[in-house]
């Protein structure tokens, strides 16, 4: 199975672990991640305003590159996934946007949202299958109680992201089970950690982070996994009351598959 891969800028710098372990694990699972030859930063936030065109172009370029190769586009960072998936949705459904973007890009054949965007977790669930992962695990993380933190960007708005049940998701818990550990469901796993304001409103970010971590601890979690570099940083740096290890889910996957 070959997929085009869009790593995004954070995965090349501060979140190299997220990327590295994803690649190693993919190899074991028989998935080839072909990094797009030229990609640009997606902008990290989806431009919601209907008159924002330029800020969506880098996402369309990535989508178009995958389309040329005839491959699905694999994402890993939650922010990149959110931006690219939503821009793709616009390209499928918003005729005005379609026209403007294509006028701007002057492609040989207009891009109208043909590429399928797949998050690494979706790939594990839908293309590889958690059962298959279970078979490949050599180092099951037995007895580890792990809380999944979904955050916002993978789940909402659910009619576009189509990732999982936005209020009661299960993909990360299923993932945790597949690597032999025990998932701990926390009520705040889909509530915002305040990552966007971590630079300028530290107090608010800390408050949200403390709520998430304390609730995870109450439920007996020993560690929290995430797919988002910003959540990772925020949950780690801005917790004031308690500390819990915050880990990228790919790192645990690599560990379980014995390639860490």
């Amino acid at each position, binding site marked *: 199975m070959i997929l085009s891969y869009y790593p995004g*800028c954070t995965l090349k710098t501060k979140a190299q672990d997220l990327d590295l372990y994803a690649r190693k694990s993919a190899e074991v699972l028989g998935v080839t991640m072909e990094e797009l030859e030229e990609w640009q930063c997606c902008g990290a936030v989806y431009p*919601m*305003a209907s008159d924002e065109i330029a800020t969506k172009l880098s996402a369309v370029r990535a989508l178009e590159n995958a389309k040329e190769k005839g491959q699905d586009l694999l994402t890993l960072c939650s922010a990149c996934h959110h931006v690219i998936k939503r821009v793709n949705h616009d390209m499928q459904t918003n005729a005005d946007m379609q026209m403007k973007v294509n006028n701007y890009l002057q492609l040989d054949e207009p891009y109208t949202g043909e590429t399928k965007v797949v998050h690494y977790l979706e790939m594990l669930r839908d293309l590889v299958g958690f059962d298959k992962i279970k078979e490949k695990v050599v180092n099951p993380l037995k007895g580890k109680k792990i809380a999944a933190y979904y955050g916002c960007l993978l789940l909402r708005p659910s009619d576009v992201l189509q990732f999982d049940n936005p209020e009661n998701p299960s993909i990360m818990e299923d993932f945790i089970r597949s690597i032999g550990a025990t998932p701990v469901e926390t009520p705040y796993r889909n509530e915002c950690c305040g990552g*966007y*304001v*971590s630079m300028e409103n530290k107090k*608010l970010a800390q408050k949200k982070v403390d709520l998430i971590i304390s609730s995870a601890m109450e439920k007996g979690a020993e560690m929290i996994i995430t797919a988002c*570099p910003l959540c990772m940083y925020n949950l780690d*740096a801005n917790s004031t009351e308690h500390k819990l290890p915050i880990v990228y889910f790919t790192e645990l996957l690599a560990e379980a598959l014995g390639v860490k």
Partner: protein
Amino acid sequence: MDKFLQEQILRMSGVNTRKCMKCGKCSGTCPAYDEMEYHPHQFVAMVESGDIDALMQSNSIWTCLSCFACVERCPRSVEPANLIEAVRLAVIRQQNANHLKAQEIPENLEEKLPQQAIVSAFRKYSK
């Protein structure tokens, strides 16, 4: 009441504020509620009534975490988050009105801060 600005915000956001039935689920949902002067349901009501200046001057628009929980749970598909983004844009698209300036970055910089945080802050808070 600034009709032009109101129209601009409605157009940018694609939100029809008249769909709001004032149930308050957005405000019941909002994780940043306590830090806000105006709350999500008020954003909708204020744009609807044209009381936009107050919104633009309020810190509340910068407090919104863009977590889309209000969008997800609104029973009338009003999408308050889109509206707030449009108000933010209406502010930073003005001359010299960037909420975050490049020169402010270094003092905020932390060793572990991911690029994503800086990029998104720039995208969200400056033009």
